[in-house]
């Protein structure tokens, strides 16, 4: 299981188009407020540099140390100068100084970080070394010397500060670029229509953008703070030219006798810093792979009415009318809707679709593992009389692990890297079996043997990074087996593995199923896996179930044109010229679903009526049920169960 599906779903609207970051930020009230405050401050200072109520340097000694009045909105300073005028003019130079620091830092760090992360090798080594070196430099000592040397020229001081600060940013950008590049190795093969290089640059940049903005706002606040502190020490810009830092320093020197001066001077800095900070947070929320951060947006269920429990005793899991939505900066986005599927005891059901189809979201929704910004907004998942979508916290006890368990996609990421395999497994055993450490250790070895690990005792002592991917997936399966579940949700259990290992893991799953009689919900995009393991198939496209059928019927001839297209691009079904066929076009993102059939734009059989209104599930020949009004096999009766819910 990877976060990619949810992430793609959640961030797709944000990254879909250029400039949408700004739109995403402005979509939140915090972003709007912070942006407005910053804009006002910046504009006021820009305009204020030319138009001030008073001459910022004009003294009126008779009016010194005045608190606010009609004539002087923010009072006057020690020499009777208008504080507001000075703040406005000082703002320009202070903001320019901050801008210098930020620019120097970004201009230096961005290319270096990208180069280090993306190119790797020697380049990476050299850059990382230099960064390590600069990170250990005592910034303040250098800064003090520089300021003394350049006659307290804050612009130069801030440029040096930016230079020294760039080391930190290089590290962050490098990390992000590295992660993005690695991710590409996994996903590049699945992306369609763009060259790898294009994808790489675009992907890395869009991924780094958020981090850079967040880091930059933070750095800007620190630069402003350092500027202020240096002025407090008398190392700031020389008077009489007003600067914010200098004015706070001046206010600090009379803090006890004329405390008012601290308020406007400190206030404007605090407001600017707060606005920058909030903006940084919002940007992070908007770009982050999760919404959790500080935004804390969430989605609520629409009404409390669950879908009816079909009440079929043979059916373990009955999903009915399931709809899942994610809260994003741009608003609530539905990523999966109107999903019906059944899993019967002992059978294996394949949940098939391209990435972005919503298949992993369904699997997660069933286990209550949606990220914080996602929720089931309608429908139910019935587990033997219990609606899983209604469970919270302790309600999951006795369900997770012991009734339904999970095997995730990337086995290496599915194990806690900081604890030994035996410890992780043993912990689950102790929870499920309520036994002591010693007994648990025995059971751990048993479980590892059950998943055909050769030297269980030795493997139990190892850390996840010390074993191979195939071994890790066996361990992950053992963890799922620890509670003796009746249903195993396997989310792309073989995708991240070598081809030879894939077969072994599938064999193992089949063997375990035969041994324990558990059911398996197998999430996959690989028809080979479906053919090997599944009795029944549910095909998802753009958040909707497009076809349900017995595996044999699907392979014999699917009802939905999308299923057909998907089957055709399977590596097992190469085109006559030997190349891999692809489905032309791309899956529409959740916020761009068309009216009517989601596949219409890519469908060779599409007609005008396909895009008129919602398409019902239609019963077709054999076991097939498809969401198509021009199916590949003869149509039967509409399926009443889902028809009335279609929009």
């Amino acid at each position, binding site marked *: 299981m990877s976060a990619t599906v949810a992430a793609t779903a959640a961030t797709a609207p944000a990254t879909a188009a250029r400039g949408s970051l700004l739109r995403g930020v402005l979509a939140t009230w915090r972003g709007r407020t912070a942006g407005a405050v910053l804009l006002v401050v910046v504009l006021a200072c820009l305009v204020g540099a030319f138009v001030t109520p008073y001459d910022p340097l004009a003294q009126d000694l008779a009016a010194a140390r005045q608190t606010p009045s009609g004539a002087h909105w923010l009072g006057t300073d020690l020499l009777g100068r208008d504080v507001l005028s000075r703040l406005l003019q000082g703002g320009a130079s202070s903001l320019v100084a901050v801008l210098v620091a930020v620019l120097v830092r970004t201009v230096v760090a961005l290319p270096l970080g990208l180069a280090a992360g993306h190119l790797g090798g020697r380049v990476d080594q050299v850059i990382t070394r230099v960064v390590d070196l600069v990170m250990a430099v005592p910034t303040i000592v250098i800064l003090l010397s520089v300021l003394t040397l350049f006659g307290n020229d804050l612009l130069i001081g801030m440029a040096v500060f930016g230079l020294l600060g760039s080391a930190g940013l290089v590290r962050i950008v490098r990390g992000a670029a590295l992660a993005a590049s690695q991710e590409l190795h996994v996903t590049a093969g699945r992306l369609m229509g763009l060259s790898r290089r294009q994808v790489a640059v675009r992907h890395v940049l869009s991924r780094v953008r958020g981090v850079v903005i967040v880091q930059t706002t933070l750095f800007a*606040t620190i630069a402003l703070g350092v500027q202020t502190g240096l002025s407090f020490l008398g190392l700031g810009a020389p008077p009489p030219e007003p600067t914010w830092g200098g004015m706070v320093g001046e206010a600090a020197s009379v803090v006890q006798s004329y405390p008012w001066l601290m308020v406007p001077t400190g206030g404007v800095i605090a407001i600017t810093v707060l606005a920058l900070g909030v903006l940084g947070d919002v940007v992070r929320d908007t770009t982050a792979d999760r919404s*959790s951060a500080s935004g804390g947006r969430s989605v609520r269920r629409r009404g409390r009415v669950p879908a009816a429990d079909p009440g079929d005793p043979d059916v373990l899991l009955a999903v009915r009318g399931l709809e899942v939505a994610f809260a994003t900066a741009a608003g609530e986005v539905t990523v999966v809707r109107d999903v019906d599927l059944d899993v019967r005891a002992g059978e294996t059901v394949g949940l098939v679709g391209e990435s972005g189809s919503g298949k992993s979201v369904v699997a997660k929704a069933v286990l209550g593992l949606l990220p914080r910004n996602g929720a089931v907004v309608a429908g139910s998942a019935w587990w033997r009389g219990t609606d899983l979508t209604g469970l919270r916290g302790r309600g999951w006890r006795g369900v997770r692990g012991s009734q339904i368990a999970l095997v995730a996609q990337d086995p290496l990421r*599915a194990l*806690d890297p900081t604890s030994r395999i035996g410890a992780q497994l043993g912990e689950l055993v102790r929870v499920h079996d309520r036994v002591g450490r010693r007994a648990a250790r025995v059971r751990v070895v048993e479980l590892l043997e059950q998943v055909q690990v050769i030297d269980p005792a030795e493997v139990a002592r190892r850390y996840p990074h010390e074993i191979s991917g195939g071994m890790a997936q066996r361990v992950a399966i053992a963890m799922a087996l*620890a509670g003796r579940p009746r249903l195993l949700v396997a989310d792309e259990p073989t995708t991240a593995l070598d081809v030879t290992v894939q077969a072994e893991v599938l064999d193992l799953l089949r063997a375990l199923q035969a041994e324990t009689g558990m059911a398996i919900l197998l999430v996959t995009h690989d028809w080979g896996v479906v053919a090997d393991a599944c009795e029944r198939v549910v095909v998802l496209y753009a958040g909707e179930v497009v076809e349900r059928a017995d595996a044999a019927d699907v392979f014999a001839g699917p009802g939905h044109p999308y299923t057909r297209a998907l089957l055709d691009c399977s590596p097992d079904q190469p085109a006559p010229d030997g190349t891999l066929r692809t489905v032309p076009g791309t899956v529409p993102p959740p916020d761009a679903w068309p009216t009517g059939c989601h596949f219409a734009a890519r469908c060779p059989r599409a007609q005008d009526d396909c895009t008129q209104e919602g398409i019902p599930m239609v019963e077709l020949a054999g076991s097939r049920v498809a969401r198509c009004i021009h199916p590949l096999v003869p149509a039967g009766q509409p399926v009443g169960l889902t028809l009335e819910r279609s929009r």
Partner: protein
Amino acid sequence: MLRIVLRRLLWAVPLVLGVSLVVFLLASLVPGDPARTILGESATPDAVAALRTELGLDRPWYEQYLSWLGGLAHGDLGTSVFTGEPVTTALNSRLAVTLALVLTTVVVCSVVGVAVGVVGALRGGITARVLDVVSLAGIALPSFWVALVLVSVFAVKLRWFPATGYVSPDQSLGGWASSLVLPVVSLGLLGVAVIAKQTRDAALTVLESDHVAVLRANGLPETRLVLGHVLRNASIPVVSAIGVVFVGSLDATVFVENVFVLPGLGSRATQATVDHDVSVILGIGVYFTLVVVLVNLLVDVAYGLLDPKVRTA
């Protein structure tokens, strides 16, 4: 692990060389002449020149730098031209004060920051918002500003803590603690904010990671999940944040020590800068650099302890 430690320690050599060279160059380019400073406005140019010769200030900068390096090899950082004191003697007692201040700050920040961050990660919603505001306040308020306010309230009005000065712990442990309270609070506000934020982000990342999802899906109860897996994994980025806070606090002592009149390296640094007391500035540069190297070393060791991948690599 040992290799990492050794490599880090070796780093100190080019670092000290680099930092001292930069500081030396900067300092020797600075206008203003220590000899003139010592002798005052009325001194004759001859007297100034004589003192310059005596102090070796008339030699080219690289000669001065090389002889300084020669001394460094023997642990001799030269003498302050102002106090005539050997730099090491002058700085050693001050190092203790600065370290006491910074270490206490870092410990307090870590404990409070991690606690606040974890609560924020688990709670979300309003708690998270409140935390954000507090964090931002910590970042927005300059440390010296906070210090001034703290002094006027807790020292002058309430008389709970001394307004200025440092009490050595072997003189009075209670007095020592009491003399550190206000400086630590003003220095630590930013640190708490940074660590809390980092902890929360790290904890959230871990909470949404695959292995936590798998453990949760396979039946591990929430408390065990948090205590046994989330905290441990989250602590890796938090440790590096603590390292950053340490270094940041070290820099901020320059501001805070001046307000509280603490005889540490920070207040000495500002004084030496104004005096153009090159050997003292260099000495402080060396001390700061070594402390930073040591902190990075500790962070690396902590990584090793927390992350088995690093340990076995």
